[in-house]
């Protein structure tokens, strides 16, 4: 899944470097605070380890083998920030030294595998493992599912990045300049392989290693298991304890609302005051504006300031309808998921920054 040079346009590469840099910066600051002087030796050894793990041939059912990225276990053992840095370092060395993955696409590869992968793995692992004991079998399941979903999230990001290339980057003759396959080919092509082979390899590695560590060295699993219940159940309510369990109903509600967003398309027409500059020259729209505005006719043409500034910014998904999606309902849903996802990601990053400023959250 390492994207080589030449598959992504310079603009895409710059955008993904731009997306990765704040994550690297935040992770570096957080890891410095958590590990302090141990930062250099620990990250060096773990970058080397993730590099070596990427070379393992994991045997899969059916006689084939796959490669795991190791993002699942790196996140579980080191925590998401250190995992982001360690895997990014391994990817850089693979790109520069071994030519696996490109230099211009290093930002993209880091974003897909290190950043998106680590975050998804962390969220899924914490959500499923909850506060189970370190040696509980639910942690093995949590690790396996976290690894599987993380690798598929990375693959989806890569597929979308590759799939939008022919949409935006063509030469004068209409020939794609970079990755030539649109989304409807790129996404299935990438996802089929990762939902099966690569996904199962990651699943086997994540679950297997956590199972091994539970027997051999459970202390390694402590970093991502804060507040683990060691003995009898607490009698406090889930809300008082806080954490993921308390917010679960809210997440479910958010997911339900997300799925229902296409209902919004049923409301026809344009909201008052949300007209575009073109609407002022359209006779049908002008009549509608007048009717909605207590029968006051709109000016003959769009106000000068409105005309000038309305072309200042062209949204990637104008009117919540991504250009590459044909059905408006699906476009609406996609926009909702995208928007919700960005908000969640931003709040998590802000939460980490805040938590980092308050001090460490786990002892030792």
């Amino acid at each position, binding site marked *: 899944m390492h994207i*080589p040079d030449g598959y992504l346009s310079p603009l895409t590469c710059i955008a993904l470097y731009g997306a990765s840099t704040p994550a690297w910066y935040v992770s570096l600051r957080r890891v410095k605070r958590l590990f302090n002087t*141990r930062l250099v030796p620990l990250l060096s050894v773990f970058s080397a380890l993730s590099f070596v793990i990427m070379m393992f041939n994991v045997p*899969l059912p059916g006689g084939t083998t796959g490669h795991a990225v190791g993002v699942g276990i790196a996140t579980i053992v080191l925590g998401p920030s250190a995992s982001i840095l360690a895997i990014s370092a391994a990817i850089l060395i693979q790109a520069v030294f071994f030519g696996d993955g490109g230099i211009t696409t290093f930002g993209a590869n880091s974003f897909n595998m290190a950043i998106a992968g680590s975050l998804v793995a962390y969220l899924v692992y914490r959500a499923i493992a909850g506060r189970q004991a370190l040696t509980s079998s639910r942690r093995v399941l949590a690790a396996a599912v976290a690894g599987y979903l993380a690798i598929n999230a990375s693959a989806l990001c890569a597929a979308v990045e590759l799939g939008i290339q022919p949409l935006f980057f063509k030469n004068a*003759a*209409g*020939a794609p300049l970079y990755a030539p396959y649109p989304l409807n080919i790129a996404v299935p092509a990438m996802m089929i392989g990762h939902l099966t082979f690569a996904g199962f390899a990651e699943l086997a*590695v994540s679950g297997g290693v956590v199972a091994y560590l539970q027997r051999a060295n459970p202390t*390694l699993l402590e970093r991502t298991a804060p507040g683990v219940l060691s003995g009898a159940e607490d009698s406090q309510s889930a809300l008082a304890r806080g954490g993921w369990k308390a917010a679960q109903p809210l997440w479910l509600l958010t997911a339900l609302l997300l799925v229902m967003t296409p209902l919004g398309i049923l409301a026809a027409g344009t909201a008052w005051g949300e007209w575009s500059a073109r609407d002022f020259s359209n006779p049908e729209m002008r009549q509608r504006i007048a009717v909605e505005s207590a029968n006051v006719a709109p000016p003959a043409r769009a106000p000068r300031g409105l005309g000038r500034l309305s072309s200042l910014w062209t949204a990637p998904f104008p009117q919540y309808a991504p250009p590459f999606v044909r059905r408006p309902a699906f476009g609406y849903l996609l926009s909702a998921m995208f928007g919700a996802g960005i908000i969640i990601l931003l709040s998590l990053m802000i939460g980490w920054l805040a938590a980092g400023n308050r001090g460490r959250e786990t002892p030792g």
Partner: protein
Amino acid sequence: MSSTPRRKRPRSSVERTIASFLDAMEHAFDAEELARADGLLQRVDPRVKALGILALVVAVATAHKLWIVLALFAVAVVMAVLSQVSLQLLAKRVWIAALLFTGVIALPAPFVTPGQTLARLPLIGWPLTAQGLSAAAFLVLRVEAAATLTVLLVLCTPWNHVLKALRVLRLPAVVVVILGMTCRYIFLLLQTAHDMFESRRSRTVGELEGPDRRRVAAASIGVLMSKSFQLSSGVYMAMQSRGFRGDVYLLEDFQARRLDWIMLAAFFALALAAFWFGR
């Protein structure tokens, strides 16, 4: 003397993993040897090489005309020859692998991309478009050119010089130190993993079943992980006992000479020309 013919056993995942480890170590040794040879690129300051080759890779990525990408590829080949890098080595390490990987990916493009039909396949009747051929050519050539340039940087420069040179790109010192130490531990861990697999293989009679092999792979990774923690603790204590208190310093010992300035000018002239003619 046994009369049964020797069957060629298919390589198990353990053996293939060992083989990939050995291949990685061999690549590193090749790079070390070549970096000591007396060729053009070896004599150039690493900072100039890093900046120059990066500029050329970006030029490859931004070119909108096919002949520009071809020209940059030719430049890479000429530099390789002048730096005593054998074309056979380049073919083995870069060209064939990239051609197989990207070639397979680019193969359907001429038939899938919409555009002006040039021909049709005889039996199936799939249309071959000019735009599709152009897209496939762009992809394959870009990958080959960029990969050749990148591998040249690494083959002609000692690894720790490559890292120090990245400082000119404002990479934080702590990142450079971490990357440098990482490379050292990669080879240590590769050796450890190789020994673990070899010892497992030499104690295995017959073939292991699938689930057992998965357990072996997972357990090996687990053991490597535990060893990594122990290793990092040991390294940390060694660093502390030699005065390390968390601050990293690098000795900048590069000096630019006349050849370096000429090469820097040449690199940027080439990159600018590629940008200008390729837009």
